[in-house]
């Protein structure tokens, strides 16, 4: 374990981000580059009757026009996870083509692409394409989609992708527990759809070299190796050794840039056809319409309790919108990232979850910061709060009574996971202290004196991060392994390049990862750089999502560095004429135990590359090691959150006055980065709870398709955050003892905020039991009118 954890280190990547000298895909311009623009469906559902490109082809600067016809021979963009329905049948997996063919299935679905000398010329020509659609009724509402007989994909004859039960064998016991329970609290809720809104829109640029048949794709990706794999193995069939995927600086992803998108395949095909580099850059409208959205569940959850308030069962029925096509992780998100967490932090013995995934004529939905776990936490923590109110119990007491206790680890949850470590009471204790719950009554009185209603909301969460053990996810249907890889290269002059599979797009890997190596070797972190985001330079990687970078890729870095130490000791032993078993490494110096004979790390590095006197049968020249790390289990961050809100009884406007987040992330390498990750997650979670309102009308038009109507959280929507990670219980199975912090804020905060608003409304004499997010002023005011 690194010894200088908790030492605050500034982020080295910030020098370029804050001075505008980052290098994003759109910043890269190649000689002779052409521009691609996509023609996108204006309607949600329709048959393509005609696409006449003749006028467009004759426009100035036009080089080529592609339609769905050009890609009938290539493969579809696949789902990465096979889910079986309760009856054992495999999920429906309709083809997701590069360009729509036969039918358009959501507003923004690309049906043609124009390549021209300039983006403006491509745009002009795109507008000159004469396309004719026979508009069909839009399938937007999930319940209607399941009961109706219009289909998003006619060939599968249903809008239900799968009907999944978890754990099916627990269904009867859960039903029985609910039937016989002293009290059952039922809650129907909507987990609102979110548009990811990365600051940098998607952008892809491809080039092709005919002499070598090599392609290079620069693209906005959290996951360049997976993108290469999908393009090579499924979509275009380009051999992996002929395709380099580079994700340079990426301006945020939040999940939406994990996936392979058709635009990437299109620019590759166009670059080959034209023999010229081709670039496409999304505009903000395209981002709204076509980036994979998040959440969008409609859920009914029941909590059964005995007379003492002990939890007996959680039973959940969810409809999960997958949109018009299956995005790469869309089938994993509502199932294994959601259902497996439905026991929460609790010793509840019975859990059953049913998820129906539904096709609709809307943008594809996939993992978005938290991915499944926010949905689980929101359902659990809202229904517990409702139960506490119904039973007249204190919501903290009720939770504590049912918490898994520190002496119960490893704990097998009723939803099928084995929690390795945690201490939920300690988190709650610390939260109560920092949030000054004792002072709440006085603060409520002060709010009331100015005519405002004050509410207190609390929440406990657990999530599964460090995604994920390959053997486990393989059993669960994943078509990929979820290990990661690192190569540590010690250069002859003693500095290091560390090639890592995890891509950094705001997470601070360029600062945190070198610290791990520096601490292990006892050398200065400034002499270590990481290399990421380029498939030609790094061994392999499964990308950045699921709060996995440090827990999985960081562990690979540890393993590779351990190998470096083993070999370096052999070299040192040779130099010192001792046995490598007697060599000790301390503060960057190798010495023979019990003597004062030593060599520095730099001397060993130089010797590795100038091996004039090496015993070559025992030691190879060079000092470079690679490790692949596959985790033994998920990691289980957890937390206790608290929020105080004020509600304006006249307007329904909610303002978040105080927010406390106490998280258990295990060991913390760089506290500043961790705090920043929590802040970002809280901003997004509070955004989901109060502001972000993705709205499709009955025709499948996205009404909230710009910042004029889609409310992003802004600094003045957020209070000062009290963030604490002092109560960490180390992960027991990875070498760093870390758990992952990237998503926690977005997972823990939505129920905290909603619980607080419900509390405020009740304190004001409005017995509202539930409100669906986002709690806009209009929604809150409307609820006050109806009770």
């Amino acid at each position, binding site marked *: 374990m690194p010894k200088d954890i908790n030492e605050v280190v500034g982020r080295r990547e910030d020098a370029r981000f804050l001075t505008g000298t980052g290098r994003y895909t759109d910043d890269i311009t190649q000689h002779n580059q052409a521009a691609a623009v996509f023609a996108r469906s204006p309607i949600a559902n329709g048959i393509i009757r005609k696409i006449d490109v003749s006028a467009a082809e004759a426009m100035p600067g036009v080089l080529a026009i592609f339609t769905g016809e050009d890609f009938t021979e290539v493969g579809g963009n696949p789902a990465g996870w096979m889910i079986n329905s309760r009856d054992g049948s495999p999920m429906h997996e309709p083809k997701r083509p590069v360009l729509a063919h036969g039918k358009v299935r959501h507003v923004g679905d690309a049906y043609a692409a124009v390549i021209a000398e300039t983006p*403006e010329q491509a*745009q002009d020509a795109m*507008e000159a394409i004469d396309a004719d659609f026979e508009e069909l009724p839009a399938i937007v509402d999930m319940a209607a989609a399941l009961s109706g007989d219009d289909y998003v994909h006619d060939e599968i004859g249903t809008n239900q992708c799968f009907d999944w039960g978890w754990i099916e064998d627990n269904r009867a016991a859960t039903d029985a527990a609910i039937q016989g329970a002293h009290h059952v609290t039922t809650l129907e809720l909507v987990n609102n759809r979110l548009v990811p809104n990365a600051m940098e829109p998607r952008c892809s640029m491809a080039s092709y070299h005919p002499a070598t048949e090599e392609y290079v794709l620069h693209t906005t990706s959290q996951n360049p190796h997976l993108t290469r794999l999908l393009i090579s193995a499924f979509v275009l069939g380009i051999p992996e050794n002929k395709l380099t995927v580079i994700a340079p600086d990426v301006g945020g992803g939040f999940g939406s840039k994990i996936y392979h998108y058709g635009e990437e395949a299109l620019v590759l095909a166009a670059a080959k056809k034209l023999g010229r580099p081709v670039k496409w850059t999304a505009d903000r*409208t395209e981002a709204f319409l076509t980036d994979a959205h998040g959440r969008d569940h409609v859920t009914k959850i029941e909590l059964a309790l005995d007379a003492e308030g002990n939890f007996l069962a959680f039973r959940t029925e969810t409809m999960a919108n997958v949109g018009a096509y299956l995005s790469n992780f869309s089938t994993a998100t509502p199932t294994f990232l959601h259902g497996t967490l439905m026991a929460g932090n609790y010793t509840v013995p019975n859990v059953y979850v049913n998820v129906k995934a539904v096709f609709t004529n809307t943008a594809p939905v996939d993992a978005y910061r938290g991915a499944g776990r926010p949905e689980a936490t929101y359902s659990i923590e809202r229904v517990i709060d409702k139960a506490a109110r119904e039973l007249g119990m204190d919501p903290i007491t009720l939770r504590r009574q049912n918490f898994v206790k520190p002496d119960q680890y490893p704990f097998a949850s009723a939803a099928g996971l084995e929690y390795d470590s945690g201490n939920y009471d300690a988190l709650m204790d610390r939260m109560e202290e920092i949030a000054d719950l004792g002072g709440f009554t006085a603060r409520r009185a002060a709010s009331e004196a100015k005519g405002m209603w004050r509410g207190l909301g609390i929440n406990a969460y657990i999530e599964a991060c460090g995604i994920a053990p390959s053997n486990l996810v393989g059993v669960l249907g994943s078509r990929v392994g979820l290990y990661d890889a690192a190569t540590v290269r010690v250069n002859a002059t003693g500095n290091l390049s560390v090639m890592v599979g995890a891509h950094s797009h705001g997470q601070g890997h360029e600062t945190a990862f070198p610290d791990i190596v520096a601490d292990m070797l006892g050398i200065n972190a400034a002499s270590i750089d990481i290399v990421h985001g380029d498939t030609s330079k790094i061994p392999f990687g499964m990308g950045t999502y699921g709060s996995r970078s440090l827990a999985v890729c960081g562990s690979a870095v540890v393993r590779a560095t351990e190998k470096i130490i083993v070999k370096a000791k052999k070299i040192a032993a040779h130099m010192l004429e001792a046995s490598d078993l007697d060599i000790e490494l301390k503060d960057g110096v190798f010495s023979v135990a019990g003597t004062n004979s030593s060599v520095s790390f730099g001397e060993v590095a130089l010797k590795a590359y100038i091996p004039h006197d090496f015993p070559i049968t025992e030691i190879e020249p060079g000092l470079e090691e690679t490790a692949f790390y596959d985790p033994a289990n998920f990691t289980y961050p957890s937390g206790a959150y608290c929020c105080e809100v004020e509600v304006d009884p*006249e*307007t329904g*406007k909610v303002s978040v006055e105080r927010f406390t987040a106490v998280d258990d992330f295990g060991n913390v390498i760089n506290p500043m980065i961790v705090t920043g990750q929590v802040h970002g997650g809280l901003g997004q979670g509070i955004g989901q709870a109060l*502001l972000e*309102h993705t*709205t499709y009308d009955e025709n499948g038009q996205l*009404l*909230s398709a710009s*910042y*004029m*109507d*889609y*409310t*992003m959280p802004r600094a003045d929507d957020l209070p000062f955050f009290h963030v604490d990670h002092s109560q960490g219980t180390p992960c027991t199975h990875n070498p760093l003892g870390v758990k992952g912090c990237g998503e926690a804020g977005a997972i823990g905060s939505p129920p905290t905020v909603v619980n607080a608003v419900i509390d405020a409304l009740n304190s004001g004499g409005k017995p509202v039991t539930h409100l669906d997010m986002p709690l*806009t*002023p*209009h929604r809150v*005011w*409307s609820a006050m009118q109806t009770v």
Partner: protein
Amino acid sequence: MYAFELERPGSVADAVAALGGEAQPLGGGQTLIPTLKARLAMPEKLVSLTGIAEMKGISSEGGGLRIGGATCHADVASGTLASYPALAGLAAQIGDPAVRNRGTIGGSVANNDPSACYPAAALASGATIITSTREVAADEFFRGMFDTALEDGEIITGVRFPVPQRASYQKFAQPASRFALVGVFVAQFAEGVRVAVTGASGDGVFRWAEAEAALSSNFAPEALDGVTADASGMISDLHGSAAYRAHLTAVLTRRAVSQAH
């Protein structure tokens, strides 16, 4: 964006001369440029007004204020702080610093967005819109959503504001755009009280006669007890129903009265 020509005249006369044919005036561009970027308009020529010195600045005139049509919101916010604080407060709440340093009062008034702030100030103050050819009372100028008395080629060169005894602008921001979901400007003059409401009506900014009558006899929040705004004709959208907007109209009017100074 489609290609266009740009002219930057130095006088109102040159601007008017440049505005023949398919030309369009360009103020701060905070509305027009996004429209062009989305290819929703295709003017052949833009005539920029922000280089015309005679259209900029704030001066006292006949007991009131005259604000040049090309004066940006930030300059109004700082320049009327002492002379007309309610107007300064309104300008200071428009958009963000970038918008306030570019967007102009003339552009806002000419555009007459149903959720814009300045139309409420102009109407409640009984302002006069000064154009390149004439002067039009605010009561005659705002004709409905995005519709005004302006003729083609006519430029707003300034707005003349009488300064009330007391006034306040209360804006309830639409959460996403932060334009007014509803905004109410209340202005008390010796002759009576004027109340203008923006954001609420499908016909754009309007005067709320019942509130004006009640407040003219008693300028106090209680005077509005039992006075309700009519929800018919009000906007319903994803940010609020007509009933909600009618309710906010009353709440904000009351708040404006209690905060007027």
